[in-house]
């Protein structure tokens, strides 16, 4: 993985250097748009200044990644899972100190996550903190393989729709838009459509699953992330046949908005209402999760995706509020 990434980074740096080398006035520079691929293979367009900022961010992210790898190397792979035994080894004292250290760890963890999870650690951190790991551990090891095997060759309205939508999921992406990528995405989506036949397949899930595949690296982990998102994190029925969950969300947010900023108070708030009325269905739909994951990954706001999967709705509403402002 590292090999390909560094190659990609190199290409990016070369691309980015090209316009920088040209002596041009600031205004012209800002108008020059450059196309490049981000961390997850999406083509992004930006002007030179954007690229420079992104490069800085990327360099920081890389440094951060190195620090993490070094830490892992020095402490062993799953160091954070082992409780930290201090010199106190008596029964009650140990118990309370464990509790205390768990609390302290949780606070530290929250702080760390807010600062952003380094991309290399995202698969691991998302998987364990979202509850996907726990969900997976409640079923036999072979669950995913058995599921994909059992549903192979079955045709339902959901699978037909999935087949129709595979090429329409991020067309042009270097991995997703290949037979290999289509096959992986198909297995995840079809598998899930059988796991929860109430949801089956709803358009939009394809984007979520595709992004999860890109982040999680393995298909099985992506499947469990999808499961935990739909079953635990999001409002239930978000993606069932009439999207009732989405309608609920929309109403709840509207009520919250009414409470926080009563209409006709001042022009600024009116503007927010105007934006809301225009965009409400747009946002909440592509919203619930797709919109976020996409924006989060592409802008490399590392913490975003994680906070979302940890705290679900509350976080979603908070972000939506920020967005409207």
């Amino acid at each position, binding site marked *: 993985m590292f090999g390909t990434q560094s190659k990609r980074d190199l290409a990016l740096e070369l691309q980015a250097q090209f316009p920088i080398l040209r002596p041009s006035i600031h205004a012209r520079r800002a108008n020059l748009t450059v196309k490049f691929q981000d961390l997850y293979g999406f083509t992004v367009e930006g002007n030179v200044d954007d690229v420079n900022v992104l490069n800085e961010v990327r360099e920081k992210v890389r440094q951060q990644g190195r620090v993490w790898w070094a830490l892992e190397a020095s402490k062993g792979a799953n160091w954070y899972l082992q409780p930290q035994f201090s010199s106190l080894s008596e029964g009650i004292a140990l118990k309370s100190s464990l509790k205390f250290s768990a609390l302290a760890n949780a606070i530290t963890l929250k702080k760390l996550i807010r600062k952003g999870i380094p991309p290399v650690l995202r698969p691991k951190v998302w998987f364990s903190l979202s509850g996907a790991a726990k969900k997976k551990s409640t079923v036999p090891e072979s669950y995913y393989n058995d599921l994909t095997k059992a549903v192979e060759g079955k045709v339902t309205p959901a699978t037909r*729709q999935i087949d*129709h*939508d595979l*090429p*329409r*999921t*991020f*067309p*042009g992406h270097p991995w997703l838009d290949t037979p290999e990528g289509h096959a992986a995405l198909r297995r995840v989506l079809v598998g899930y459509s059988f796991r929860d036949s109430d949801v089956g397949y*709803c*358009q*939009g899930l*394809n*984007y979520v699953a595709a992004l999860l595949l890109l982040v999680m690296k393995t298909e099985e982990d992506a499947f469990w992330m999808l499961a935990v998102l739909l079953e635990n994190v999001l409002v239930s029925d978000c*993606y*069932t*046949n*009439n*999207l*009732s969950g*989405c*309608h609920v969300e929309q109403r709840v947010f509207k009520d919250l908005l009414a409470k926080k900023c009563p209409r006709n108070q001042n022009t600024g708030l009116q503007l927010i209402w105007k934006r809301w009325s225009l965009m409400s*269905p*747009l946002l*909440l*739909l*592509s*919203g619930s999760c*797709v919109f976020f994951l996409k924006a989060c990954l592409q802008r490399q706001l590392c913490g975003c995706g994680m906070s979302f999967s940890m705290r679900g709705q509350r976080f979603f509403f908070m972000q939506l509020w920020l967005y409207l402002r």
Partner: protein
Amino acid sequence: MSYAYLFKYIIIGDTGVGKSCLLLQFTDKRFQPVHDLTIGVEFGARMITIENKPIKLQIWDTAGQESFRSITRSYYRGAAGALLVYDITRRETFNHLASWLEDARQHANANMTVMLIGNKCDLSHRRAVSTEEGEQFAKEHGLIFMEASAKTAQNVEEAFISTAEKIYKKIQDGVIDISNESYGIKIGHETHTTSSGGRDGTSSQAGSCCS
């Protein structure tokens, strides 16, 4: 840009029939063989001219999958025109037209102009619905009908514009009360100075004075 009227359109029809591609062809004059899937609703706009009047079309492009109908329904209200699209190579998309139309009749204003479009007519070798059937359906339900291709751009422009012409005619005939916003028409400030030779100034001023 200033306009005399703004018409709100909605594009409906089964998933994958080419709704977004029709819109892209109309607004950007280009075709994307594999278009991203539409989630919820998307949006496009373009200026056209009818009888020397600049008219802005504001077009809402909806998601076709059944589950999304509960959301698209809220977009019928306040639409002046609807493009109901099916795919001539997929019979089932034609069979579902009646249920789309029922939705439209239930949730839209009674004066909404509906245009039926048989899309992908460049793929005539894979045709599963004949032109006559399309015509027949349109006649039975009082729709305007056209076969079009978002790929070759055939009839795309015509479809959007002839719908606008029909709406415009309804305004002229007084069928539509333009002061009522639920009809999907807004009157703009026509500030630009077209020394139009075709018509005398009376009608073009009508738009600006009553707004």
